[in-house]
C-alpha cells in the first residue's frame, strides 16, 4: 500500500514537471511553474529515499551527505553569480547533470565487470548510450561555459577542417558503443577508454561553434542531458527519470530550434560553426565615411529632444554601461524628455539579455518597448541613442537578400529624426557584417567605450 502511494507520488512528480514546464512558458505563470517543477523534484527525491524498501544497505550517511554538499554548493553558486553571468552558470549546472549520468553508467559497467555476469544486449546498449550522451553533455557544457566566460577563444580550440574531425570522432564513439555491446560484459578498462573518447568528442563537438552561439548550444546540450537522464531511467526502470528526461529532451530540442529561428539561422548552420563566412559581400563596399559627433553636441541634441529612445545591444553588456545609461535617462527625464528603451528580442547574446541588464539598473518596465511597439513609436522619436547594438539595427535585414541577417526583423531606427551611435570602432558585430546604418545621413557616430561615452554625456547634460 505504501508502495502504491509512493508510485503515485512519483506520478505526481512527473505531472508537476509537465505542468511546471507549461507554466514556465508564459510570463504570468513562470515563477509558479518553476516552483511547481521544484516541488515535483522534491517529491521524487524523497520518495526515492524510502522506496523500494527491502533489506538493502541504504548508505544513508553517504547519500544525505552528498545531497547536503550538493545543495549547499548549488544554492551558493546560484545566488552569488552576477546576473550577467547566468548563462555560464546554467551551462555549468547542465554539465554537472551530464557528469552525474556518466558516473552512473561507469559504476554500473564496473559492477558488471566485477560480477562477471552477462547483462544482455539491451542493458549494455542503454548503459553505453547513457555514458555517450552524458559525456558529450558534460565536456560540451564545460567548454561552452569557458567560451561564454571569455576564458577560451574559438581560435584556441578549433582546428582546420574541424568538422571532419568531429565526424570521425562521432563515428568512433558510435563504433565504440557497438563494440562494447558485443562484449558481455565488457572489461572496465575498455569502458574507461570508451568514456575518454566520448568526453573528447563532447569537447570537440562544441569547439568550432562560435562563442556567441553558446546559448543555442547550451539549450542543445541541455536536451542531451535530458536524454541521458531518460536512458539512465531505463537502467533503473524508473518512470520519473524516463519521463522527466524525455520531456527535457523534447522541449530542449524545440527550444533550440526556436532560438535559431529568432536569429533567422538554421541549427545546422550553428553547429557547423564559423558564422559570417560568406558575409562580406557588402563589407568592402566603398570608401564611405561615417559622420562623427562631439559629446557636447550630442548632449545638446538629447537635452532639447522631446523624445529619446535608447537601443541597447551587446556592447551595453560588454561595457557594463547599464547603470550609467539609466543615469543619463534620469537626467533627461528630469528635463521633461520622454525616454524609452527599444528591446530587440535577440539583442545581446542570450534571449532576455537586455531585460536582465536594464532590470539590474532599475529601469522601470513601462519604459521598455518590444520590437513592434518600438517600431511604431520610432517615427515620432526625435533622437535614437544606439548603445553598442549593431546587427539588430542593420537595414540589410530588410533590403539586402545576400546578407546573412536578411529576413530578421530589425528595429527601424532610420524612421526617427536623428541617430547617435555609441561604439568603439567601425568593427562589425556578431554577424560579422558591415552596417550601412552608420553611413546613413541621419546617423552620427560617437566613438568610445559605451560606459565612458555615456558618463561624458551625463557630465555634459548636467552642465547644460
Amino acid at each position, binding site marked *: 500500500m505504501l508502495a502504491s502511494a509512493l508510485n503515485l507520488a512519483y506520478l505526481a512528480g512527473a505531472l508537476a514537471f509537465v505542468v511546471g*514546464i507549461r507554466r514556465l*512558458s*508564459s510570463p504570468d505563470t*513562470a*515563477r509558479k511553474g*518553476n516552483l511547481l*517543477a*521544484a516541488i515535483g*523534484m522534491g517529491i521524487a*527525491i524523497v520518495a*526515492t*529515499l524510502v522506496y523500494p524498501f527491502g533489506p*538493502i*544497505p541504504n*548508505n544513508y550517511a*553517504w*547519500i544525505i551527505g*552528498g545531497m547536503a554538499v*550538493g*545543495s549547499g554548493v*548549488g544554492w551558493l553558486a*546560484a545566488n552569488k*553569480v552576477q546576473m550577467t553571468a*547566468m*548563462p555560464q*552558470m*546554467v551551462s555549468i*549546472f547542465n554539465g*554537472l*547533470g551530464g*557528469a*552525474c*549520468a556518466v*558516473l552512473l553508467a561507469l*559504476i554500473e559497467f564496473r*559492477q558488471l565487470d566485477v560480477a562477471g555476469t552477462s547483462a544482455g544486449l539491451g542493458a549494455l546498449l542503454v548503459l553505453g548510450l547513457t555514458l555517450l550522451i552524458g559525456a558529450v553533455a558534460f565536456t560540451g557544457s564545460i567548454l561552452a561555459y569557458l567560451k561564454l566566460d571569455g576564458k577560451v577563444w574559438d581560435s584556441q580550440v578549433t582546428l582546420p577542417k574541424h568538422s571532419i574531425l568531429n565526424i570521425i570522432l562521432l563515428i568512433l564513439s558510435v563504433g565504440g558503443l557497438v563494440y562494447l555491446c558485443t562484449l558481455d560484459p565488457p572489461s572496465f578498462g575498455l569502458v574507461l577508454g570508451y568514456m575518454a573518447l566520448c568526453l573528447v568528442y563532447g569537447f570537440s563537438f562544441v569547439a568550432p561553434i562560435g562563442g556567441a552561439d553558446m*546559448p543555442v548550444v*547550451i*539549450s542543445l546540450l*541541455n536536451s542531451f*542531458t*535530458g536524454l541521458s*537522464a531518460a536512458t*539512465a531511467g531505463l537502467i*533503473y526502470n524508473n518512470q520519473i*527519470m524516463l519521463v522527466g*528526461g*524525455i*520531456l*527535457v529532451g*523534447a*522541449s530542449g530540442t524545440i*527550444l533550440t530550434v*526556436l532560438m535559431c529561428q529568432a536569429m533567422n539561422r538554421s541549427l545546422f548552420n550553428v553547429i557547423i560553426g564559423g558564422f559570417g563566412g560568406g558575409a562580406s559581400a557588402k563589407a568592402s563596399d566603398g570608401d564611405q565615411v561615417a559622420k562623427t559627433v562631439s559629446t557636447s553636441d550630442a548632449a545638446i541634441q538629447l537635452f532639447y529632444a522631446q523624445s529619446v529612445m535608447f537601443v541597447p545591444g551587446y556592447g551595453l553588456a560588454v561595457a557594463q554601461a547599464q547603470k550609467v545609461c539609466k543615469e543619463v535617462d534620469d537626467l533627461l527625464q528630469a528635463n521633461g524628455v520622454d525616454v524609452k528603451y527599444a528591446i530587440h528580442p535577440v539583442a545581446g547574446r*542570450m*534571449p*532576455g*539579455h537586455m531585460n536582465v541588464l536594464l532590470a539590474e539598473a532599475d529601469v522601470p*518596465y*513601462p519604459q521598455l518597448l518590444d520590437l513592434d511597439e518600438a517600431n511604431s513609436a520610432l517615427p515620432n522619436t526625435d533622437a535614437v541613442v544606439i548603445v553598442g547594438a549593431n546587427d539588430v539595427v542593420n537595414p540589410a535585414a530588410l533590403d539586402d537578400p545576400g546578407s546573412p541577417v536578411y529576413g530578421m526583423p530589425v528595429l527601424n531606427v532610420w524612421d526617427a529624426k536623428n541617430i547617435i551611435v555609441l561604439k568603439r570602432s567601425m568593427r562589425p558585430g556578431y554577424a560579422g557584417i558591415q552596417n550601412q546604418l552608420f553611413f546613413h545621413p541621419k546617423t552620427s557616430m560617437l566613438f568610445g567605450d559605451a560606459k565612458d561615452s555615456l558618463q561624458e554625456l551625463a557630465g555634459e547634460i548636467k552642465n547644460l
Partner: protein
Amino acid sequence: MEQFFQFVDNNLILLYLLAFTVMLGFELISKVPTVLHTPLMSGANAISGVVIIGAILLLRRADAEDYFTLVLGTLGIILGMINVVGGFAVTGRMLDMFKKRKTKS
C-alpha cells in the same frame, strides 16, 4: 533484430508513453515568447537533474564496503544535486525580473 521486435512487443505501453511524452514536450514549448527562452532553458536544465534519482537508487543498493561505488556515487549525488538546486535557484532569480515587470506595468 529479433531482440528489437521482442522489446517492442513487451514494452508496447512504454513506447506509447515515450511517443506521447515527446509530443507533449513539443506542444508545451511551441508557443513560448523569446524573453522566456533563457529561464525556460534553465528550468528544463534543473529538471534534467532527475538523473540524481538514479544515483540515489544506486547508492542505496551499493555494498557498504564497496568504496569505489560509494565514493563515485556520492560524487554523482553531489553533482546532480548542484544541478537540481542550483538550476531551480538560478531560474527563480531570472524570473524575479518578471515579477518586477508585473507589479510596475
